[in-house]
């Protein structure tokens, strides 16, 4: 695949403003192919479930042993034996199944999940993911299922703000935080743009509230416009 030239960048879809958390979740939900088996990570990725349409027929996996997870349980629905990976009470949908922890991670590690959606501290230009540990010397490390999700799913989508509070890009040449997985991220959904990551470098699918040139000024890795087929 040849690199895209800057003359083609004008054809990237650009919307007027940066996306909020819910808009981003709606966009990720829309991009999930019908019939997919999906694991949504704790935190921002969980919002995606609010925007999945029944016609998409998406089956949600939770690593504590269930396929066919339904929405968060409310009131009388709350059952202490039925929780998600974030330990939030959830519901079961018709057709749900339960299995033990090793089977649940075999579903993940065996490459059976189509997509997992994760948050991130940093993503590198080649799709390395850092999302479990800041590396601070006094931090208590806790990894949970992050490394299994990152290496096991067919596609790993990251949802994050593009910039830290200090204005530094979280899309980086090489991660400075401890890695969760190597070369595992395939797409990065941010408030300012959707990026495709892989061995060919970083391609931009669409931008929100900025041009590709303005985006490039924020991000320390070379960006190219994604071919139309990817958009």
């Amino acid at each position, binding site marked *: 695949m040849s690199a895209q030239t800057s003359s083609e960048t004008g054809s990237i879809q650009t919307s007027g403003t940066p996306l909020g958390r819910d808009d981003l979740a709606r966009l990720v939900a829309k991009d999930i192919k019908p019939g997919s088996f999906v694991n949504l990570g704790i935190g921002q990725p969980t919002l995606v479930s609010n925007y999945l349409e029944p016609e998409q027929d998406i089956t949600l996996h939770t690593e504590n042993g269930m396929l066919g997870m339904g929405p968060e349980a409310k009131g009388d629905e709350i059952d202490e034996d039925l929780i998600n990976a974030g330990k939030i009470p959830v519901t079961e949908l018709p057709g749900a199944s339960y299995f033990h922890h090793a089977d649940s*991670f075999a579903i993940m590690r065996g490459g059976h999940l189509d997509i997992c959606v994760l948050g991130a501290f940093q993503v590198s230009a080649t799709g390395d993911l850092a999302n479990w540990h800041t590396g601070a010397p006094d931090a208590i490390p806790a990894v949970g*299922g992050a490394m299994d999700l990152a290496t096991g799913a067919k596609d790993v989508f990251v949802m994050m703000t593009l910039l830290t509070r200090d204005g530094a890009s979280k899309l980086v040449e090489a991660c400075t935080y401890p890695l969760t997985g190597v070369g595992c991220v395939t797409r990065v959904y941010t408030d300012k743009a959707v990026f495709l990551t892989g061995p060919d470098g970083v391609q931009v699918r669409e931008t929100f509230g900025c041009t590709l040139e303005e985006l490039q000024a924020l991000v320390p890795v070379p960006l190219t416009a994604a071919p139309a087929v990817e958009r």
Partner: protein
Amino acid sequence: MLNFIDTVGEAVAGIKDGSTVMIGGFGNAGQPFELIDALMDCGARELTVVNNNAGQGDQGLALLIKEGRVKKMICSFPRQSDSWHFDAKYKAGEIELELVPQGNLAERIRAAGAGIGGFFTPTGYGTMLAEGKETRIIDGRGQVFETPIHADVALIKALKADGKGNLVYRKTARNFGPIMAAAAKHTIAQVSEIVPVGGLDPENVVTPGIYVNSIVKVA
């Protein structure tokens, strides 16, 4: 041999100082709280505990840690909003932590129960949790060698047992129960109900009774 035991205290009485104890549960689901409380009361010390977490709030495993009875935790996610007893011991250097990715934790436990001496997995490859471990490229992917986790005792919670020790669980409370039952030399299950032999549909048994040594009914 299978024993039906009247009290949780008698069920855990044989747990010795220095034992490795697996404790089932993920969050509160499937956590054998009564057996953990009994382990607290029985006084065993210098324990290595295998659990997904490292105790929450002021109950169960968190109290065992607070009282200095746990020498080492093997877990995937010790740090939580309410893991203050573990946090304090860890920061004081009074507890050892072996941090294991959750899928490796589950598979290492499963491997122990299945008599497997180890396995290669891509999980953790290229990360600090693989430092010092043997690696290989298999099918073009970097993989890390992981070894089984055996235990002296497993404390698990199931919904029902029958007279042969067969177990069924309830919803996501199943989690680590079946694999821990197989991985430990001695498995103690607390159950809500005991039914006679033949009272469970053999097609629906999740943990065959061969893995279970002691059963205690907890109301």
